[in-house]
């Protein structure tokens, strides 16, 4: 178990980096508490895997220090870090039984056979794999194989953290749901810190106590899912967290206020003249579609209704070329072409200046 500190930690794969753009991970300061769940989230090439590889010791950072419980482990080899890893594809010995797979890491460390039996039984019960202990590992489904990969990390009693590198990629949607629940239960029961790398915002939101959003090697925002959802610090986080992304509506300064013909919600305009781009950010989930006489910020014509199951996404045209998306459960009662009123609470309409959340 360990508290993990990234101290001015950065990495360039080049020997002589020349400026910021040569860094796969631009120097960052982060503190992760013992026993919590974290997600490193971003598109391909954002630096999340570099960060994970530095923590596991596969990459030696060109800048800064990595601390486990205050101890500098920056240059300590992977084998001495007490890190367990689960990868995108299950790594298991397919000819061995589940029991042999789980026992293997302990056998390699010369643990006494009686203790191995006990630990394997404990971990199998934690994973709900008791019944499968004597089955060949290859007979199991993809999600069960991922649990074995995880179990091989968990059997060791000295594990500081479990690193999960997109472990749900090959799992079908409904099974993902179950596996995520299992991961959270294991975190709660064992208190082991878990760090998940993913490009899937919904996975990050439901798994992590705290999410680190990255883009182009640069930390964008780190916070609880609630913070990232309700107050994205910039337009990238507004886009990357949430599906559909945050609606961004352009505003213009006129007579002391920032406004648009599309909606009647306004903000105080800055007193000094400015050439910045002003936008209003509204989450599709924060829009209530009501009768057009009850609208508080504007009306729109329904252009498209997408049925996604329990929820639906309704696209409305507010003015020429100004579209807004709303997420609702009432989509089955609506029809394309009708005019709906739009209700948004004042606090849910956020002002962005050149893509940065205004204070």
């Amino acid at each position, binding site marked *: 178990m360990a508290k993990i500190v990234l101290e001015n930690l950065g990495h360039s794969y080049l020997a002589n980096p020349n400026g910021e753009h040569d860094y796969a991970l631009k120097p960052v300061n982060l503190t992760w508490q013992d026993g919590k769940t974290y997600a490193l989230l971003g598109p391909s090439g954002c630096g999340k895997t570099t960060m994970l590889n530095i923590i596991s010791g596969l990459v030696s950072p060109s800048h800064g220090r990595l601390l486990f419980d205050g101890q500098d482990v920056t240059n300590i080899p992977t084998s001495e870090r007490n890190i367990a890893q689960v990868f995108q594809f299950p790594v298991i010995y397919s000819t061995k039984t589940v029991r042999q797979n789980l026992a293997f890491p302990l056998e390699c460390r010369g643990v006494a056979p009686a203790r191995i039996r006990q630990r394997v039984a404990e971990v199998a019960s934690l994973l709900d794999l008791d019944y499968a202990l004597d089955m060949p590992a290859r007979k199991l489904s993809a999600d069960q194989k991922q649990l074995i990969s995880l179990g091989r990390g968990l059997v060791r009693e000295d594990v500081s953290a479990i690193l999960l590198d997109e472990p749900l990629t090959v799992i079908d949607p409904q099974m993902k749901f179950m596996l995520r629940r299992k991961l959270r239960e294991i975190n709660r029961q064992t208190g082991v810190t878990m760090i998940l790398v993913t490009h899937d915002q919904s996975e990050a939101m439901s798994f992590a106590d705290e999410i680190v959003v990255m883009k182009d090697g640069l930390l964008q925002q780190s916070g609880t899912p609630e913070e990232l*959802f309700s107050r994205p610090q910039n337009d990238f986080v507004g886009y990357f967290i949430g599906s559909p992304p945050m609606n961004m509506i352009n505003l213009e300064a006129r007579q002391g206020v920032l406004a648009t013909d599309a909606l009647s919600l306004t903000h105080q305009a800055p007193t000094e003249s400015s050439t910045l781009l002003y936008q209003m950010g509204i989450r599709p989930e924060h829009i209530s579609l009501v009768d057009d006489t009850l609208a508080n910020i504007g009306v729109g014509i329904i252009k498209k209704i997408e049925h996604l199951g329990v929820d639906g996404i309704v696209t409305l045209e507010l003015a020429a070329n100004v579209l807004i998306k709303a997420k609702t459960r009432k989509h089955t009662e609506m029809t394309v072409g009708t005019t709906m009123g739009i209700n948004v609470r004042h606090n849910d309409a956020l002002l962005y200046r050149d893509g940065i959340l205004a204070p």
Partner: protein
Amino acid sequence: MLQINHLTTVDAKVSLDDVSFLFEAGKIYTILGRTGAGKTELLRALMGLNPLSHGNIKLDEKDITEEPIRARNMSLVYQQFINYPHLSVLDNVAFPLRRQGKDKAQAQALASTMLATVGLGEFLQRRPAQLSGGQQQRVALARAMVKQSRILMLDEPLANLDYKLREQLREEFPRLVADNAESVILYTTTEPREAMELGNTMIVMHNGSIIASGAPAELFANPPTKDTASVISDPPISFVSGFVRNHELYFSEGHLAPSEGLVLPEDGPVTIALRPDAIEPDGVFNAKIGLSEFSGSQTIIHLDFDFGRAIMMVEGIETFAAGDDINVSIQSEHIMLFAPDGRNITLRNN
């Protein structure tokens, strides 16, 4: 029009079991199923890549079952973005046209128009490796579409892309395939939401068979069987056992279940299906909270009832501690009933 009759395969990894369907030109069919349901095998059988032990394929009344692959007038886009690495983006897309015998100038002109449609007009001279994953998949899509085949098949085309790229391409999809509006488009996926969003008709596959088909919203509201309900529900649907006695519905532990508005079957066992919209906070049913997860502006709460597990979704960000007790209500207008043989027997009296 593409007609398949009794397609059966035995040699493939997953066997097709007597699959018949009539596909109309100009429509998008999404084929939804879990890994191993037979989706890829169906496409491969249509292409002629998997030998049939039984059945036939007719394109506009003409039997093409024995036709060689190249003569079938079909294109297939794979999950892995497959492009010719040594050719430019433009030549990748022009290649199938050259093979059809078009001259170089004509092939390149058509290819560059198609590349503009998929948003790659600026990258004609790049090599595929110099593009992002999403752009590489657009090249593969453009190469499949430029042939204007009668049948355009896409096998989980977005599965290897980032979440956000997937979201963007799903949004653009109807526009991307607009040039193939006269074709039959078949699109496989494991994601219920993707299948519902993109398909005019959704086809559900399970264990090598087509188990249901129809308009996505209609199929979601009235799945004909328990297997169909299970495959198309994300978040997962919960099935708990129950029974009907003296015109009342009960959960297996003997709790009276709400049945207002439902026409109940004869006395006997039933399966009660609960989707997240069937459960709301406050009420007479007690459950233990297994886990609470955050998803956008909603909180997903995994509930352990004494009659089974289910999921509730509440608006807003609520903190529920795992292990705590909670009282909830179950809405009869959102529950579904299935017979022991799996048939949907939900009947509402309005």
